[in-house]
Protein backbone atom coordinates (compact mmCIF):
# COMPACT_ATOMS: atom_id res chain seq x y z
CA UNK A 1 0.00 0.00 0.00
CA UNK A 2 2.83 2.34 0.97
CA UNK A 3 4.62 1.46 -2.26
CA UNK A 4 1.48 2.19 -4.28
CA UNK A 5 1.03 5.53 -2.51
CA UNK A 6 4.71 6.40 -3.03
CA UNK A 7 4.52 5.48 -6.70
CA UNK A 8 1.37 7.53 -7.10
CA UNK A 9 2.98 10.56 -5.46
CA UNK A 10 6.09 10.18 -7.62
CA UNK A 11 3.93 9.82 -10.70
CA UNK A 12 2.01 12.97 -9.89
CA UNK A 13 5.24 14.90 -9.42
CA UNK A 14 6.77 13.62 -12.65
CA UNK A 15 3.64 14.51 -14.62
CA UNK A 16 3.42 17.90 -12.94
CA UNK A 17 7.07 18.66 -13.62
CA UNK A 18 6.79 17.56 -17.25
CA UNK A 19 3.65 19.64 -17.64
CA UNK A 20 5.40 22.73 -16.34
CA UNK A 21 8.49 22.08 -18.46
CA UNK A 22 10.78 22.10 -15.44
CA UNK A 23 13.79 19.80 -15.17
CA UNK A 24 13.60 17.24 -12.40
CA UNK A 25 17.31 17.09 -11.88
CA UNK A 26 20.03 19.62 -11.68
CA UNK A 27 23.57 19.35 -10.43
CA UNK A 28 22.96 16.01 -8.78
CA UNK A 29 19.62 16.91 -7.16
CA UNK A 30 16.61 14.80 -8.07
CA UNK A 31 12.90 14.61 -7.38
CA UNK A 32 10.76 17.29 -5.82
CA UNK A 33 13.73 19.08 -4.25
CA UNK A 34 14.71 20.39 -7.68
CA UNK A 35 11.14 21.12 -8.79
CA UNK A 36 9.26 24.38 -8.31
CA UNK A 37 6.00 22.41 -8.07
CA UNK A 38 4.75 21.92 -4.50
CA UNK A 39 5.32 18.32 -3.41
CA UNK A 40 2.51 16.09 -2.16
CA UNK A 41 2.29 16.56 1.60
CA UNK A 42 0.14 14.48 3.92
CA UNK A 43 -0.76 15.57 7.44
CA UNK A 44 -2.87 13.68 9.93
CA UNK A 45 -4.60 14.71 13.17
CA UNK A 46 -6.26 12.49 15.75
CA UNK A 47 -7.58 12.66 19.30
CA UNK A 48 -8.75 10.34 22.06
CA UNK A 49 -10.89 11.65 24.92
CA UNK A 50 -12.15 10.64 28.36
CA UNK A 51 -15.23 12.37 29.75
CA UNK A 52 -17.16 12.43 33.05
CA UNK A 53 -20.28 14.61 32.86
CA UNK A 54 -23.60 15.50 34.44
CA UNK A 55 -25.07 15.77 30.95
CA UNK A 56 -27.25 12.96 29.70
CA UNK A 57 -24.76 11.77 27.14
CA UNK A 58 -22.41 8.80 26.92
CA UNK A 59 -19.39 8.95 29.23
CA UNK A 60 -16.06 7.20 29.32
CA UNK A 61 -13.54 6.92 26.56
CA UNK A 62 -14.52 8.70 23.38
CA UNK A 63 -12.62 8.27 20.18
CA UNK A 64 -12.49 11.67 18.49
CA UNK A 65 -11.80 12.32 14.86
CA UNK A 66 -9.12 11.01 12.57
CA UNK A 67 -8.52 13.76 10.04
CA UNK A 68 -6.24 13.51 7.02
CA UNK A 69 -5.07 16.47 4.98
CA UNK A 70 -3.29 16.34 1.64
CA UNK A 71 -1.69 19.16 -0.33
CA UNK A 72 -0.41 18.51 -3.83
CA UNK A 73 0.93 20.86 -6.46
CA UNK A 74 -0.36 20.06 -9.95
CA UNK A 75 1.62 22.85 -11.58
CA UNK A 76 3.66 25.70 -10.13
CA UNK A 77 0.48 27.73 -9.56
CA UNK A 78 -2.27 25.11 -9.36
CA UNK A 79 -2.66 23.30 -6.04
CA UNK A 80 -5.06 20.74 -4.64
CA UNK A 81 -6.02 20.77 -0.94
CA UNK A 82 -8.14 18.03 0.60
CA UNK A 83 -9.29 17.12 4.11
CA UNK A 84 -11.19 13.97 5.04
CA UNK A 85 -12.38 12.95 8.52
CA UNK A 86 -13.54 9.72 10.13
CA UNK A 87 -15.76 10.20 13.19
CA UNK A 88 -16.86 7.46 15.58
CA UNK A 89 -20.67 7.03 15.82
CA UNK A 90 -22.57 4.48 17.98
CA UNK A 91 -23.10 2.17 15.00
CA UNK A 92 -20.54 3.24 12.42
CA UNK A 93 -17.71 5.54 11.43
CA UNK A 94 -18.86 8.55 9.45
CA UNK A 95 -16.51 9.51 6.65
CA UNK A 96 -16.78 13.12 5.56
CA UNK A 97 -15.04 15.16 2.88
CA UNK A 98 -14.41 18.28 4.95
CA UNK A 99 -12.51 20.31 2.35
CA UNK A 100 -11.82 19.73 -1.31
CA UNK A 101 -10.24 22.73 -3.00
CA UNK A 102 -8.49 23.33 -6.30
CA UNK A 103 -6.79 26.75 -6.32
CA UNK A 104 -4.91 28.75 -8.92
CA UNK A 105 -2.55 31.38 -7.54
CA UNK A 106 -2.28 34.32 -9.95
CA UNK A 107 -0.20 36.34 -7.49
CA UNK A 108 -0.26 37.41 -3.83
CA UNK A 109 -3.23 39.67 -4.46
CA UNK A 110 -5.47 37.25 -6.31
CA UNK A 111 -6.04 33.51 -5.91
CA UNK A 112 -9.11 31.80 -7.33
CA UNK A 113 -10.43 28.45 -6.15
CA UNK A 114 -13.42 26.17 -6.25
CA UNK A 115 -14.67 23.34 -4.08
CA UNK A 116 -15.82 22.74 -0.51
CA UNK A 117 -14.47 24.96 2.26
CA UNK A 118 -14.81 25.71 5.92
CA UNK A 119 -16.83 28.92 5.65
CA UNK A 120 -14.61 31.94 6.33
CA UNK A 121 -17.34 33.59 8.37
CA UNK A 122 -15.58 32.53 11.58
CA UNK A 123 -11.89 32.77 12.52
CA UNK A 124 -11.88 29.46 14.42
CA UNK A 125 -13.49 27.66 11.51
CA UNK A 126 -10.61 28.49 9.15
CA UNK A 127 -7.74 28.61 11.62
CA UNK A 128 -8.04 25.14 13.16
CA UNK A 129 -10.31 23.12 10.84
CA UNK A 130 -10.27 19.52 12.14
CA UNK A 131 -6.79 19.73 13.63
CA UNK A 132 -7.59 19.53 17.32
CA UNK A 133 -3.89 19.46 18.20
CA UNK A 134 -3.57 22.96 16.71
CA UNK A 135 -6.20 24.45 19.02
CA UNK A 136 -5.45 25.07 22.68
CA UNK A 137 -8.75 23.76 24.11
CA UNK A 138 -10.36 20.30 23.91
CA UNK A 139 -13.22 21.40 21.68
CA UNK A 140 -14.44 24.25 19.50
CA UNK A 141 -16.69 27.00 20.82
CA UNK A 142 -20.39 26.06 20.75
CA UNK A 143 -21.18 28.69 18.11
CA UNK A 144 -18.88 27.01 15.58
CA UNK A 145 -18.75 23.41 16.86
CA UNK A 146 -18.80 20.57 14.34
CA UNK A 147 -22.39 20.28 13.19
CA UNK A 148 -23.24 23.79 14.36
CA UNK A 149 -26.55 25.27 13.22
CA UNK A 150 -25.65 28.74 14.48
CA UNK A 151 -23.01 29.44 11.84
CA UNK A 152 -22.72 27.60 8.52
CA UNK A 153 -19.57 25.50 8.97
CA UNK A 154 -19.23 24.48 5.31
CA UNK A 155 -19.52 26.31 2.03
CA UNK A 156 -19.44 24.82 -1.47
CA UNK A 157 -18.71 27.14 -4.37
CA UNK A 158 -16.07 29.56 -5.62
CA UNK A 159 -13.73 31.73 -3.58
CA UNK A 160 -11.45 34.60 -4.57
CA UNK A 161 -8.87 35.61 -2.01
CA UNK A 162 -5.64 37.49 -1.65
CA UNK A 163 -3.64 39.89 0.41
CA UNK A 164 -1.40 42.88 0.50
CA UNK A 165 1.25 41.61 2.95
CA UNK A 166 3.63 44.56 2.62
CA UNK A 167 1.09 47.20 3.58
CA UNK A 168 1.26 48.59 7.11
CA UNK A 169 -2.00 46.89 8.04
CA UNK A 170 -1.21 43.64 6.19
CA UNK A 171 -4.67 43.54 4.65
CA UNK A 172 -6.27 40.40 3.25
CA UNK A 173 -9.66 39.54 1.80
CA UNK A 174 -11.88 36.73 0.55
CA UNK A 175 -15.10 36.83 -1.42
CA UNK A 176 -17.22 33.90 -2.47
CA UNK A 177 -20.42 32.58 -3.98
CA UNK A 178 -21.80 29.17 -3.17
CA UNK A 179 -24.62 26.91 -2.12
CA UNK A 180 -25.00 27.96 1.49
CA UNK A 181 -27.03 25.91 3.97
CA UNK A 182 -28.71 22.65 2.96
CA UNK A 183 -32.16 21.31 3.92
CA UNK A 184 -30.56 20.27 7.20
CA UNK A 185 -29.19 23.72 8.07
CA UNK A 186 -26.18 22.29 9.89
CA UNK A 187 -24.87 20.97 6.59
CA UNK A 188 -23.72 22.71 3.44
CA UNK A 189 -25.48 22.08 0.16
CA UNK A 190 -22.84 19.72 -1.21
CA UNK A 191 -25.08 18.00 -3.76
CA UNK A 192 -26.67 21.23 -4.95
CA UNK A 193 -28.34 24.27 -3.44
CA UNK A 194 -31.69 23.79 -1.74
CA UNK A 195 -33.10 26.89 -3.42
CA UNK A 196 -32.38 29.22 -6.33
CA UNK A 197 -30.57 31.72 -4.16
CA UNK A 198 -26.80 31.37 -3.85
CA UNK A 199 -25.01 32.38 -0.67
CA UNK A 200 -22.59 35.29 -0.87
CA UNK A 201 -19.75 36.01 1.54
CA UNK A 202 -17.07 38.63 1.98
CA UNK A 203 -14.37 38.87 4.59
CA UNK A 204 -11.51 41.27 5.28
CA UNK A 205 -8.75 41.02 7.87
CA UNK A 206 -5.62 42.80 8.98
CA UNK A 207 -2.32 41.31 10.14
CA UNK A 208 -0.34 44.42 11.06
CA UNK A 209 3.40 44.07 10.71
CA UNK A 210 4.01 45.97 13.93
CA UNK A 211 2.22 43.40 16.15
CA UNK A 212 3.35 39.89 15.31
CA UNK A 213 0.62 37.27 15.67
CA UNK A 214 -2.29 39.71 15.65
CA UNK A 215 -5.21 39.30 13.27
CA UNK A 216 -8.41 41.33 13.35
CA UNK A 217 -11.20 41.16 10.83
CA UNK A 218 -14.83 40.83 9.96
CA UNK A 219 -17.14 38.99 7.60
CA UNK A 220 -20.54 39.29 5.98
CA UNK A 221 -22.58 36.29 4.81
CA UNK A 222 -25.93 36.51 2.98
CA UNK A 223 -28.15 33.54 2.11
CA UNK A 224 -31.70 32.29 1.91
CA UNK A 225 -31.99 29.27 4.21
CA UNK A 226 -34.77 26.63 4.45
CA UNK A 227 -36.81 26.72 7.69
CA UNK A 228 -38.53 23.72 9.33
CA UNK A 229 -41.93 25.12 8.34
CA UNK A 230 -41.22 24.68 4.64
CA UNK A 231 -40.51 28.31 3.85
CA UNK A 232 -37.26 30.18 3.24
CA UNK A 233 -35.66 32.67 5.59
CA UNK A 234 -33.44 35.56 4.56
CA UNK A 235 -30.23 35.24 6.53
CA UNK A 236 -27.54 37.84 7.11
CA UNK A 237 -24.53 37.10 9.28
CA UNK A 238 -22.17 39.81 10.51
CA UNK A 239 -19.09 38.65 12.36
CA UNK A 240 -15.91 40.10 13.82
CA UNK A 241 -12.82 38.54 15.34
CA UNK A 242 -9.63 39.40 17.15
CA UNK A 243 -6.87 36.82 17.45
CA UNK A 244 -3.52 37.22 19.13
CA UNK A 245 -1.81 33.91 18.49
CA UNK A 246 1.40 34.45 20.39
CA UNK A 247 1.79 31.98 23.22
CA UNK A 248 2.29 34.64 25.90
CA UNK A 249 -0.56 35.49 25.81
CA UNK A 250 -2.96 33.85 23.36
CA UNK A 251 -6.28 35.67 23.04
CA UNK A 252 -9.12 34.65 20.73
CA UNK A 253 -12.42 36.49 20.57
CA UNK A 254 -15.29 36.29 18.10
CA UNK A 255 -18.72 37.80 17.85
CA UNK A 256 -21.46 37.04 15.34
CA UNK A 257 -24.94 38.44 14.83
CA UNK A 258 -27.27 36.27 12.75
CA UNK A 259 -30.29 38.17 11.41
CA UNK A 260 -33.32 36.29 10.08
CA UNK A 261 -36.45 37.43 8.30
CA UNK A 262 -39.05 35.09 6.80
CA UNK A 263 -39.07 35.27 3.01
CA UNK A 264 -41.98 37.47 1.92
CA UNK A 265 -42.05 39.49 5.12
CA UNK A 266 -42.37 39.00 8.84
CA UNK A 267 -40.60 39.86 12.07
CA UNK A 268 -36.84 40.32 11.91
CA UNK A 269 -34.97 38.51 14.67
CA UNK A 270 -31.36 38.61 15.85
CA UNK A 271 -29.23 35.90 17.38
CA UNK A 272 -25.99 36.88 19.10
CA UNK A 273 -23.12 34.49 19.67
CA UNK A 274 -19.65 35.12 21.04
CA UNK A 275 -16.72 33.66 22.91
CA UNK A 276 -13.57 34.93 24.55
CA UNK A 277 -10.65 32.58 25.16
CA UNK A 278 -7.35 33.42 26.83
CA UNK A 279 -4.29 31.26 27.38
CA UNK A 280 -0.75 31.77 28.60
CA UNK A 281 2.22 29.46 28.15
CA UNK A 282 4.17 29.26 31.39
CA UNK A 283 7.87 30.25 31.46
CA UNK A 284 10.79 27.83 31.66
CA UNK A 285 11.20 25.23 33.09
CA UNK A 286 7.45 24.51 32.98
CA UNK A 287 6.86 25.93 29.49
CA UNK A 288 5.22 22.67 28.38
CA UNK A 289 2.11 23.81 30.29
CA UNK A 290 -0.42 26.32 28.99
CA UNK A 291 -3.42 27.16 31.22
CA UNK A 292 -6.48 28.53 29.48
CA UNK A 293 -10.04 29.68 30.06
CA UNK A 294 -13.05 30.44 27.86
CA UNK A 295 -16.42 32.05 28.31
CA UNK A 296 -19.13 31.90 25.65
CA UNK A 297 -22.77 32.70 24.98
CA UNK A 298 -25.44 32.06 22.36
CA UNK A 299 -28.67 34.06 22.71
CA UNK A 300 -31.42 33.12 20.28
CA UNK A 301 -34.54 35.26 19.79
CA UNK A 302 -37.61 33.25 20.90
CA UNK A 303 -39.31 34.08 17.60
CA UNK A 304 -36.39 33.16 15.35
CA UNK A 305 -37.95 31.30 12.39
CA UNK A 306 -34.83 29.25 11.62
CA UNK A 307 -33.25 28.51 15.03
CA UNK A 308 -36.23 28.36 17.41
CA UNK A 309 -37.07 24.66 16.83
CA UNK A 310 -33.54 23.56 17.78
CA UNK A 311 -33.04 25.17 21.21
CA UNK A 312 -29.63 26.69 20.56
CA UNK A 313 -29.34 29.01 23.59
CA UNK A 314 -26.13 28.33 25.47
CA UNK A 315 -24.01 29.66 28.31
CA UNK A 316 -20.66 28.12 29.05
CA UNK A 317 -17.46 28.58 30.97
CA UNK A 318 -14.41 26.37 30.95
CA UNK A 319 -10.91 26.27 32.40
CA UNK A 320 -8.16 23.88 31.45
CA UNK A 321 -4.50 23.23 31.02
CA UNK A 322 -2.66 21.98 27.97
CA UNK A 323 0.51 19.93 28.46
CA UNK A 324 2.70 19.51 25.37
CA UNK A 325 4.42 16.30 26.41
CA UNK A 326 5.98 15.90 22.96
CA UNK A 327 6.61 18.34 20.12
CA UNK A 328 3.66 16.96 18.13
CA UNK A 329 1.36 15.70 20.90
CA UNK A 330 -0.56 17.30 23.76
CA UNK A 331 -2.61 16.27 26.78
CA UNK A 332 -5.46 18.64 27.69
CA UNK A 333 -7.47 18.58 30.93
CA UNK A 334 -10.62 20.68 30.96
CA UNK A 335 -13.44 21.51 33.39
CA UNK A 336 -16.70 22.82 31.91
CA UNK A 337 -19.72 24.48 33.44
CA UNK A 338 -22.47 24.76 30.82
CA UNK A 339 -26.14 25.53 30.50
CA UNK A 340 -28.00 24.27 27.43
CA UNK A 341 -31.45 25.38 26.27
CA UNK A 342 -33.12 22.02 26.95
CA UNK A 343 -32.24 21.86 30.68
CA UNK A 344 -32.88 24.29 33.50
CA UNK A 345 -29.69 23.88 35.47
CA UNK A 346 -26.00 24.12 34.87
CA UNK A 347 -24.17 20.91 34.04
CA UNK A 348 -20.55 20.20 34.83
CA UNK A 349 -18.09 18.05 32.91
CA UNK A 350 -14.50 16.92 33.10
CA UNK A 351 -12.64 16.20 29.89
CA UNK A 352 -9.23 14.75 29.18
CA UNK A 353 -7.89 14.62 25.65
CA UNK A 354 -4.76 13.43 23.94
CA UNK A 355 -4.39 15.02 20.53
CA UNK A 356 -1.54 14.76 18.08
CA UNK A 357 -0.44 15.30 14.52
CA UNK A 358 1.58 13.08 12.25
CA UNK A 359 2.84 13.03 8.69
CA UNK A 360 5.49 14.87 6.70
CA UNK A 361 6.55 17.69 8.97
Amino acid sequence: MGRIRGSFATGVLVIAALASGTPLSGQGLVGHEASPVAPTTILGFADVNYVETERKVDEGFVLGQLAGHVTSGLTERLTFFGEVSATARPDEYRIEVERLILRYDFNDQFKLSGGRYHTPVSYWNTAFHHGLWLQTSVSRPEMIKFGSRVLPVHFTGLLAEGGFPLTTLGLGYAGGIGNGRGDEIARGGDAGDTNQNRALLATVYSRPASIFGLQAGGALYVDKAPAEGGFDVDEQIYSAHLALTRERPEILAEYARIRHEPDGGGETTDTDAWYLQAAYRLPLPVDAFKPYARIERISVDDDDPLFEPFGLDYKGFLVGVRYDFASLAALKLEYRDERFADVDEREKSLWAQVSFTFGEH
Partner: protein
Amino acid sequence: MARGALRRVAVLGAIALATALGARESQAQNAAIAIVTNSRTTANDLSFLELRKIFLGEKQFWDDNSRIILLVRAPVARERDVVLTKIYRMGEAEFQQYWIAKVFRAEVSSKPKIVYSSDMTSELVTVLPGAIGFLPVDEVGPGMKVLRINGKLPGETGYPLQ
Protein backbone atom coordinates in the same frame (compact mmCIF):
# COMPACT_ATOMS: atom_id res chain seq x y z
CA MET B 1 69.04 14.94 18.81
CA ALA B 2 67.75 15.04 15.22
CA ARG B 3 64.78 12.92 16.29
CA GLY B 4 64.00 15.37 19.13
CA ALA B 5 64.12 18.36 16.78
CA LEU B 6 61.88 16.56 14.33
CA ARG B 7 59.39 15.87 17.12
CA ARG B 8 59.41 19.55 18.17
CA VAL B 9 58.83 20.64 14.59
CA ALA B 10 55.93 18.17 14.28
CA VAL B 11 54.35 19.37 17.50
CA LEU B 12 54.72 23.04 16.53
CA GLY B 13 53.31 22.27 13.10
CA ALA B 14 50.32 20.52 14.62
CA ILE B 15 49.70 23.46 16.96
CA ALA B 16 49.93 25.94 14.06
CA LEU B 17 47.53 23.85 11.95
CA ALA B 18 45.05 23.50 14.81
CA THR B 19 45.24 27.25 15.47
CA ALA B 20 44.61 28.02 11.80
CA LEU B 21 41.67 25.60 11.60
CA GLY B 22 40.27 26.93 14.86
CA ALA B 23 40.52 30.50 13.62
CA ARG B 24 38.74 29.53 10.38
CA GLU B 25 35.98 27.75 12.29
CA SER B 26 35.63 30.71 14.65
CA GLN B 27 35.44 33.02 11.64
CA ALA B 28 32.70 30.82 10.13
CA GLN B 29 30.82 30.83 13.42
CA ASN B 30 30.85 34.61 13.48
CA ALA B 31 30.23 35.17 9.78
CA ALA B 32 27.19 37.21 8.81
CA ILE B 33 24.31 35.33 7.21
CA ALA B 34 23.83 36.21 3.56
CA ILE B 35 20.39 36.07 1.93
CA VAL B 36 20.94 34.50 -1.47
CA THR B 37 18.67 34.10 -4.47
CA ASN B 38 18.75 32.64 -7.92
CA SER B 39 20.73 34.97 -10.15
CA ARG B 40 17.69 35.56 -12.44
CA THR B 41 15.62 36.98 -9.58
CA THR B 42 14.91 40.66 -10.22
CA ALA B 43 15.15 41.67 -6.55
CA ASN B 44 18.42 43.21 -5.37
CA ASP B 45 17.43 44.92 -2.13
CA LEU B 46 14.73 43.92 0.37
CA SER B 47 13.50 45.72 3.42
CA PHE B 48 13.69 43.62 6.58
CA LEU B 49 9.87 43.65 6.68
CA GLU B 50 9.75 42.26 3.15
CA LEU B 51 12.32 39.60 4.05
CA ARG B 52 10.24 38.62 7.08
CA LYS B 53 7.02 38.40 5.08
CA ILE B 54 8.79 36.15 2.56
CA PHE B 55 10.16 33.84 5.23
CA LEU B 56 6.74 33.73 6.94
CA GLY B 57 5.14 32.64 3.66
CA GLU B 58 2.91 35.71 3.50
CA LYS B 59 4.60 37.13 0.41
CA GLN B 60 4.77 34.23 -2.05
CA PHE B 61 5.58 35.98 -5.32
CA TRP B 62 8.44 38.20 -6.47
CA ASP B 63 7.59 41.56 -7.98
CA ASP B 64 7.95 40.07 -11.50
CA ASN B 65 5.18 37.61 -10.48
CA SER B 66 7.41 34.54 -10.35
CA ARG B 67 6.84 32.25 -7.38
CA ILE B 68 9.16 32.47 -4.39
CA ILE B 69 10.66 29.12 -3.39
CA LEU B 70 11.85 29.26 0.19
CA LEU B 71 14.81 27.16 1.35
CA VAL B 72 15.43 26.68 5.07
CA ARG B 73 18.40 24.89 6.57
CA ALA B 74 17.69 21.80 8.71
CA PRO B 75 18.10 22.04 12.53
CA VAL B 76 21.39 22.45 14.40
CA ALA B 77 23.02 24.67 11.76
CA ARG B 78 24.11 28.03 13.23
CA GLU B 79 22.60 29.96 10.32
CA ARG B 80 19.19 28.38 11.03
CA ASP B 81 19.39 29.54 14.64
CA VAL B 82 20.16 33.09 13.47
CA VAL B 83 17.25 33.08 11.00
CA LEU B 84 14.78 31.64 13.54
CA THR B 85 15.84 34.15 16.16
CA LYS B 86 16.12 37.29 14.03
CA ILE B 87 13.61 36.77 11.22
CA TYR B 88 11.00 34.39 12.62
CA ARG B 89 11.43 35.31 16.30
CA MET B 90 10.44 31.74 17.11
CA GLY B 91 11.89 28.66 18.78
CA GLU B 92 12.07 25.28 17.03
CA ALA B 93 8.71 24.03 18.34
CA GLU B 94 6.93 27.25 17.45
CA PHE B 95 8.50 27.24 13.97
CA GLN B 96 7.34 23.66 13.37
CA GLN B 97 3.80 24.39 14.55
CA TYR B 98 3.68 27.59 12.47
CA TRP B 99 4.32 25.72 9.20
CA ILE B 100 2.02 22.79 10.04
CA ALA B 101 -0.79 25.30 10.61
CA LYS B 102 0.11 27.32 7.51
CA VAL B 103 -0.07 24.25 5.25
CA PHE B 104 -3.19 22.90 6.99
CA ARG B 105 -4.99 26.21 6.51
CA ALA B 106 -4.15 26.11 2.78
CA GLU B 107 -2.44 29.49 3.13
CA VAL B 108 0.61 28.09 1.33
CA SER B 109 1.06 25.36 -1.25
CA SER B 110 3.93 23.83 0.68
CA LYS B 111 6.23 24.36 3.62
CA PRO B 112 9.81 25.56 2.92
CA LYS B 113 12.15 23.13 1.24
CA ILE B 114 14.52 21.79 3.87
CA VAL B 115 18.20 21.78 2.93
CA TYR B 116 20.83 19.81 4.79
CA SER B 117 24.07 21.56 3.84
CA SER B 118 25.44 24.78 2.42
CA ASP B 119 26.26 22.88 -0.77
CA MET B 120 22.61 21.84 -1.11
CA THR B 121 21.48 25.43 -0.57
CA SER B 122 23.93 26.62 -3.25
CA GLU B 123 22.85 23.96 -5.73
CA LEU B 124 19.11 24.58 -5.28
CA VAL B 125 19.47 28.37 -5.39
CA THR B 126 21.44 28.01 -8.59
CA VAL B 127 19.01 25.64 -10.30
CA LEU B 128 15.60 26.87 -9.09
CA PRO B 129 14.25 30.15 -10.50
CA GLY B 130 12.70 32.15 -7.67
CA ALA B 131 14.62 30.33 -4.95
CA ILE B 132 15.73 32.20 -1.84
CA GLY B 133 17.87 30.83 0.97
CA PHE B 134 20.58 31.78 3.40
CA LEU B 135 24.26 30.92 3.89
CA PRO B 136 27.21 32.06 6.00
CA VAL B 137 28.67 34.82 3.84
CA ASP B 138 32.03 33.05 3.46
CA GLU B 139 30.25 30.06 1.85
CA VAL B 140 28.52 32.04 -0.89
CA GLY B 141 29.65 30.71 -4.25
CA PRO B 142 29.26 31.77 -7.86
CA GLY B 143 25.94 31.56 -9.72
CA MET B 144 23.82 33.18 -7.03
CA LYS B 145 22.93 36.69 -5.94
CA VAL B 146 23.47 38.15 -2.46
CA LEU B 147 20.63 40.51 -1.57
CA ARG B 148 21.00 43.77 0.29
CA ILE B 149 18.77 43.96 3.37
CA ASN B 150 17.68 47.48 4.26
CA GLY B 151 20.33 48.62 1.77
CA LYS B 152 23.16 46.78 3.56
CA LEU B 153 25.31 43.86 2.47
CA PRO B 154 26.64 41.24 4.91
CA GLY B 155 29.52 42.69 6.92
CA GLU B 156 28.39 46.28 6.56
CA THR B 157 27.44 48.18 9.68
CA GLY B 158 23.72 47.89 10.35
CA TYR B 159 23.25 44.62 8.42
CA PRO B 160 20.50 42.84 10.41
CA LEU B 161 21.78 39.25 10.15
CA GLN B 162 25.27 39.57 11.62
